[in-house]
């Protein structure tokens, strides 16, 4: 592959300044269409559907193991009897995360992506309808979509969520916002997780916060630990406020 001009052939290198003498039956069509258009249209349909139902949808994005499922377990526990929660789990394989959520007594659907690195709007659409068919399903106020563990690819795919939450756990280090500006740039909320581990890792919270705000000045930044419950109040209030605003709309 030729790096300088994007020429797709691995073997030949030629420059593209020469005119292309294709024969006269050739035809050029100006398309000018985004490759994200199909996904974006489906995402909009999802969002409209959630709006109609009065449900808030959140897309959780992080590296593998940053604590998404644990956070959901504790959140469900804390909001039991107050807010009706549903979960769509995206995982490359297995339904272990879904089993953990199901054990908390809320409807959950596992989407195995067959190795794919992100969820898209069509999968989310399918997932939501499967969720509605879960035994004992009641309309949810709050839908969590746990994306596939990966900080890169999910950023390019709108699922129809209302807010996008990026998680970075303390052991991962503070430089993630600088390394993944697109992910932080499209997010609404940044959660620093596993703060109980701060004494054992070099993670200057203020530096991470500053880097994140550099990529996205509107980001809401929160810190919490699922293990100790520190910082949970702010997180739960954030969820409550969104659900309340949606009901009032």
């Amino acid at each position: 592959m030729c790096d300088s001009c994007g020429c797709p052939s691995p073997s030949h290198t030629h420059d593209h300044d020469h005119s292309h003498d294709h024969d006269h039956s050739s035809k050029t069509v100006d398309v000018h269409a985004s490759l994200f258009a199909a996904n974006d249209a489906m995402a909009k349909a999802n969002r409209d559907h959630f709006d109609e139902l009065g449900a808030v949808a959140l897309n959780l994005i992080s590296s593998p193991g940053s604590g998404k499922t644990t956070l959901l377990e504790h959140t469900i526990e804390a909001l039991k009897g107050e807010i009706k929660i549903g979960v769509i789990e995206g995982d490359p394989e297995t339904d272990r995360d879904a089993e953990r959520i199901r054990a908390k007594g809320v409807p959950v659907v596992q989407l195995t992506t067959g190795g794919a690195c992100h969820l898209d709007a069509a999968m989310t659409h399918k997932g939501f309808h499967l969720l509605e068919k879960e035994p004992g399903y009641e309309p949810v106020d709050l839908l969590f979509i746990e994306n596939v563990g990966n900080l890169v690819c999910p950023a390019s795919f709108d699922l129809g969520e209302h807010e996008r939450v990026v998680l970075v756990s303390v052991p991962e280090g503070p430089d993630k916002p600088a390394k993944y500006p697109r992910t932080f740039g499209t997010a609404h909320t940044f959660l620093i997780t596993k703060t109980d581990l701060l004494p054992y890792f070099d993670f200057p919270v203020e530096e991470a916060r500053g880097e994140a705000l550099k990529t996205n000045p509107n980001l809401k930044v929160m810190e919490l630990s699922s293990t100790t419950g520190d910082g949970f109040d702010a997180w739960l209030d954030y969820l409550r406020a969104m659900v309340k605003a949606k009901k009032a709309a």
Partner: protein
Amino acid sequence: MHEMSLVQGLFEQLKGLAAENNSTKVLSVTMEIGPICGVVVDSFQFGFEILSSQEEMFKNTELIIEIPEVTYTCTSCGHQEVSAGERPDACAKCDEFFLTPSGGDDLILKRVEME
């Protein structure tokens, strides 16, 4: 490698276009890949090579890639900087960190040449 699924979607679209225009061969495809659209140019090219080699219609298709510029506006003094590569670390005028990007966040199929 979400680039692979994007290329798959692109080829579906190209097949539709070829059918509409009674074409059997795609000569060239011009893509505009924004520097902040979340697509790695090398991965996109790689996906394109792999998938194009699997279909007669795309065997000799040339992939032309254009990289548009992104305009970064300083949130404090309004100074604008244009870049098609790296995001500037800070405003060149006042050292402000908060820069708002505009443009360069899309992946666009611009032009297709067929016969």
